[in-house]
Structure formats: structure tokens, C-alpha cells
């Protein structure tokens, strides 16, 4: 097999080969690119990577989740269906306290909580690695230099080694781990009679409607209780109907609903991925990825004798890991989409570099991939998933809250380092004990995890090397991949230019809190009602736009093969 050899993983160069199926694809006469492009999408590249605006004003989908802008409040937004929003937007009051506050944080609370999360959590999100310039190795080194650290001590080296180890494993874990299918959430139960009575009394007292005469007072309260109960039952029934409708649209492959749900599912992904079009059962995902230096830790984390240490990674190894990681992330994104939406037949992933400010149509495509459901899931599924818990608990231990015990002094690590910066300690320092405890627990988790690592490596190997006619790339020894073409080859440049200049896509680097910022949101019935509103507004806007441009005719779905034609032809010539 041609290809790159990595410890346990090989990436063949067959991705650049054009198999029989792709060689025989028909060349569409009707302007494939014009119709297969993101019918619903308005893509742009901002400071945080690829963002996709819906082009309907306040609503857009970005790589950071569904975003809503324009003075619409931190939790819920009107999408133009003002009547429904105004009345139902407040939601049943029994969801208004525990249900929402717990899950949907305001931007302010997000900012404050962000500072409390450790670097590992920042890097990996919900146990999934996210290569990020903000957490790059160079930043790590710069931080040490700023702190006056000339040479790392054993604790810093250990932490760096474990971070490097996690970053290397995370893309493989992302690919091998299972992803849940989207489920229709249940509407929460109504509050109990005591809560309703309490609310009734409060209402009446506020309205000065409580009589001092006990019999009348009791009757007034009971009447109000009955009224509130009726209102709640009505709201609950409406909520259920809305969730049913939203989920039915999702199951029926409604493009807008699916893009919103999938965007929420991708919200914590390592590679910044934005689903931008659904054409029949073919999903198109635009993904942006950092450069080699930002995506790969230039040290190798070596785990020996229950301890981590670092060794230098060569430039060649760095590039190879970059190639492997990017491909794993692309495949993991496709796998997640297939799992979330069982009716998807094909997922195409177009990867562009993170280059804010560059014209979208001119962005080089560094990797293209067209995943077919059956063969992708067959290659990327590991029957034994017991290791997932081990991995997650290991990360949790590594990222344990005792980091935050020293928030006032800059976090656990900094506080700990201060304690051991040459000042002799009287007796055992509790911070060292805490560090040892955390490190020991993490080491045990790592040891357990390593027992399963061969299966995880095999999954990655199969996915990267055994999928026919999936990958389109050209290898570069310096940057990982050479461009296969530009985004404008696949997506109509006019659409991209229009999206680039769309004022509604501004400000996407400052996401407003919405339910879709966490994949957990899809378990909440309110997510589905909001998604329904967004989808409906989106469809209406798109319909108006299409009517004005094409007289209301919808282009027929195009085959995934046709979509990739420009690259396939180019690679064949190469």
C-alpha cells in the first residue's frame, strides 16, 4: 500500500485515485454546481472559521451553533413568526426556571464560566479534541515564557505530555466512538398541584383579588387553580404538537430542520463543521481546519510506568499526524451525521483552511471526502464501546474541578507551580497531593484505555484506507495537503460572494447564547420548537428568494457524484 506510515495507522495515497464509480459519473448538463450548491446556505469565513448564514436576517447557522442576533434576548428569538413567538415564546412557566436556566447560559455567564474551565476542557470541549489556535503549542510556550519559566519542571512536562497524548488520541476516539440518533424529546410533566396553587395565590395577590372572607377566598383560589391547570394543559398539548411537527420534518429529511439539528450536533466537534446543504439524502458539510502548527502538538506524549513524559516529534511526524487527524475529524463528522440522521445516504465534507477575510470562492479546498452510509459506518464502528466511558472518565479526571480550587491564583497548575518554584515547603503540600491524586487517577484511566487502543486504531485505519472512492486529496510534505481546487469549483461563486457580503453574517464571532450551542440541546423539547420556527422562517425566505430568481421552480436533486465532478476530473488529469 502506498502511503504514510504512522504508529498503528497508515494513510494510503489512494485517496487521489479515481475509482471506477467516480470515473463513470455523468457530467451534468444543467450546471451541476449551480444547483447542488448550498441552496440554503450562505457561507462565510470569520475569525472562528467557517460560518454559514441562512440569509434570513436574524437567524443563521454558524460553526459555533445556531446563532440568533439582533436584540432578541439570550434564550429565545423570534424569527419573524411574531405571534407564535410572543405567545409561546415565553414557554410554559414550569420550564422557565430549572429547565432553561440550567442549560442555556447567557453570554455573560458563558464568559465567566469559560475562565473557570481548564485548558484541557478548552481544548477538548465535551471530551472531544478541538485543535485551536488559542490553545496551540506556541501559545503554551509563550505563556510559560511570560511567566518567566525558563525550563519546565516535571509537573509542567507531565501535563504537556498528557495534553499531547490526548490530542493525538482524540481524533481517533472521535471517529471510533458511537453517536446517538436524534430522538424526539418528551414534553415535561406539568407541575404538581402545590406549585400550581402557589402560583395561583401569587397571581391573585398581585392582582389584589384575594378576599379576606375564607369561603370566598378558597373558591377564588380554586377557580384560579383550575384556570391555570387548563392553560398549562393547553400549552403542553401545543408544545407536544410542535415537537411532533418538528421531529416529523426532521425524519422526512426537511433540509432546514436537518441542518439546524445537525449543526447543534456538530456544535462541540473538533473540526469546525457547518452543514450547509441537504439535497435529497446527500448532506454537504463545510469544515474549516487550522494549520499544522496549530493543530498538532509538536511533542509526543509518552506513557511509561504510569507517568507521562515528552519526546520531540519530527516535522515529518507532525505533518503525518496532521493528515491523519484531519481525515479522522472529517470522517467522524460524517459518521456523526449518519448516526444522528439515519436516512442520510451520503455525506460530503469539504475542508478549507482557516483563513479569515479571504474571498470564499478562492479558498483552497485541502480535502474532499464523499462518505457513503453503509461502508462508512461499517469501517468506523467499533462493536466494543466500553472504552468510551474510560476515555470520558479519564478526561474528566484530568480536567477535574480541583483545577479551579486555585482560581484566585490562576488555577490549579499555576498555584501549584508557585508553591514549587524553589521555595522550600514545610511538610507535604496539599496541592502536590491533589496533583498526584489527579495524575494517578488519570494514569489509571489511561492504562485501562490503552487496552482498547488497538481496536480504535484499526477503526481509524479501516476508515482512512479501506473506503473506496471516498477521499480526494493531494499530500504535501510541509502543509499536510495541497489544494485540490477552490471552494468556488464546488459551490457557485456568486452565492459565496453574496454570502460574504451579507451583513447578516457579521458578528458571528460573538455568538449569542442559544439552545444549539450544545449537542445536549437536542434532548430539549424547546430546542425543537425553536428549530421549527427557524426552519419555517428560513423556508419562507428561501422560497421568496427562489421565486424571485427562478420563478418558483425547484431544481431536482443532484447526485453526490455530480457535485464532486470538478475535483474528480482534476485529480484524474493529475
Amino acid at each position, binding site marked *: 500500500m502506498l502511503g504514510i506510515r504512522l504508529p498503528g495507522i497508515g494513510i494510503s495515497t489512494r485517496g487521489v485515485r479515481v475509482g471506477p464509480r467516480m470515473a463513470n459519473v455523468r457530467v451534468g448538463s444543467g450546471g451541476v454546481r449551480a444547483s447542488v450548491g448550498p441552496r440554503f446556505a450562505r457561507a462565510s469565513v470569520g475569525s472562528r472559521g467557517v460560518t454559514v448564514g441562512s440569509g434570513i436576517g436574524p437567524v443563521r447557522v454558524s460553526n459555533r451553533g445556531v446563532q440568533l442576533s439582533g436584540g432578541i434576548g439570550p434564550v429565545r428569538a423570534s424569527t419573524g*413568526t411574531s*405571534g*407564535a413567538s410572543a*405567545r*409561546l415564546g415565553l414557554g410554559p412557566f414550569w420550564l422557565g426556571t430549572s429547565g432553561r436556566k440550567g442549560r442555556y447560559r447567557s453570554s455573560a455567564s458563558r464568559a465567566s464560566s469559560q475562565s473557570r474551565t481548564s485548558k484541557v476542557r478548552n481544548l477538548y470541549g465535551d471530551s472531544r479534541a478541538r485543535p485551536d489556535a488559542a490553545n496551540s503549542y506556541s501559545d503554551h510556550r509563550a505563556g510559560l515564557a511570560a511567566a518567566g519559566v525558563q525550563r519546565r519542571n516535571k509537573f509542567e512536562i507531565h501535563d504537556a505530555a498528557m495534553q499531547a497524548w490526548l490530542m493525538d488520541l482524540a481524533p481517533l476516539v472521535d471517529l471510533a466512538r458511537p453517536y446517538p440518533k436524534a430522538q424526539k424529546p418528551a414534553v415535561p410533566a406539568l407541575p404538581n398541584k402545590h406549585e400550581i396553587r402557589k402560583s395561583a395565590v401569587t397571581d391573585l395577590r398581585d392582582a389584589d383579588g384575594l378576599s379576606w372572607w375564607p369561603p370566598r377566598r378558597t373558591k377564588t383560589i380554586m*377557580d384560579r387553580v383550575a*384556570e391555570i391547570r*387548563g*392553560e398549562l*394543559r*393547553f400549552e403542553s*398539548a*401545543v408544545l407536544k*404538537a*410542535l415537537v*411532533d*411537527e418538528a421531529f416529523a420534518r426532521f425524519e422526512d429529511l426537511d433540509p432546514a430542520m436537518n441542518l439546524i439539528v445537525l449543526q447543534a450536533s456538530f456544535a462541540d466537534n473538533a473540526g469546525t463543521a457547518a452543514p450547509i446543504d441537504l439535497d435529497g439524502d446527500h448532506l454537504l458539510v463545510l469544515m474549516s481546519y487550522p494549520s499544522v502548527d496549530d493543530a498538532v502538538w509538536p511533542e509526543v506524549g509518552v506513557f511509561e510506568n504510569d507517568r507521562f513524559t515528552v519526546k520531540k516529534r519530527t516535522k515529518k511526524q507532525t505533518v503525518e499526524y496532521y493528515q491523519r487527524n484531519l481525515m479522522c475529524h472529517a470522517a467522524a463528522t460524517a459518521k456523526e451525521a449518519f448516526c444522528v440522521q439515519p436516512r442520510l445516504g451520503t455525506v460530503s465534507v469539504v475542508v478549507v483552511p482557516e483563513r479569515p477575510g479571504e474571498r470564499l470562492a478562492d479558498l483552497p479546498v485541502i480535502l474532499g471526502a464523499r462518505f457513503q452510509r453503509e461502508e462508512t459506518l461499517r469501517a468506523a464502528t467499533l462493536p466494543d464501546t466500553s472504552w468510551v466511558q474510560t476515555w470520558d472518565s479519564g478526561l474528566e479526571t484530568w480536567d477535574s474541578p480541583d483545577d479551579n480550587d486555585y482560581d484566585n491564583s490562576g488555577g490549579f497548575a499555576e498555584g501549584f507551580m508557585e508553591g514549587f518554584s524553589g521555595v522550600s515547603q514545610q511538610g507535604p503540600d496539599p496541592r502536590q497531593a491533589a496533583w498526584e491524586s489527579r495524575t494517578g487517577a488519570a494514569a489509571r484511566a489511561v492504562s485501562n484505555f490503552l487496552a482498547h487502543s488497538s481496536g480504535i486504531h484499526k477503526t481509524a485505519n479501516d476508515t482512512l484506507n479501506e473506503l473506496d472512492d471516498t477521499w480526494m486529496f493531494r499530500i504535501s510534505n510541509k502543509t499536510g495537503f495541497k489544494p485540490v481546487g477552490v471552494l468556488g469549483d464546488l459551490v457557485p461563486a456568486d452565492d459565496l460572494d453574496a454570502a460574504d457580503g451579507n451583513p447578516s453574517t457579521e458578528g458571528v464571532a460573538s455568538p449569542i447564547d442559544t439552545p444549539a450551542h450544545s449537542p445536549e440541546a437536542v434532548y430539549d423539547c424547546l430546542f425543537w420548537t425553536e428549530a*421549527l*420556527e427557524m426552519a*419555517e422562517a428560513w*423556508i*419562507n425566505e428561501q422560497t421568496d428568494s427562489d421565486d424571485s430568481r427562478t420563478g418558483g421552480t425547484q431544481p431536482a436533486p443532484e447526485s453526490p457524484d455530480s457535485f464532486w465532478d470538478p475535483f474528480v476530473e482534476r485529480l484524474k488529469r493529475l
Partner: protein
Amino acid sequence: MPETDKLQQGALTAGQHQLARRIEMLEQLAELRENGLLSEEAVEGLKQRVLEDEF
């Protein structure tokens, strides 16, 4: 006012209030239908439940 008149007045007010609530619910359903958020079938089902005083 005699006690019976008071009771009748109270019952009338309650009935009007109930009617107003039903109308409000039906209006909400009509809006949901108009906005395309609920299907005709779903709205019809909820409408029947409102008319049957289920809420």
C-alpha cells in the same frame, strides 16, 4: 342585589371568562397554523379539544 342575582351574575361572568379563554386558545391555534408551524390536522385536533372544554 338579591343573593340569587349575585350568583347568576357570578356564573355569567365565569362563563364569559371561560368563553374568552377558549377564543384566545383558538386564536393561538389559528396563528400557529397561519405561521406554518402546525399542520391543519394537528390544529384541528387541538381545536376539537378546546371546544370540548378539555383545557
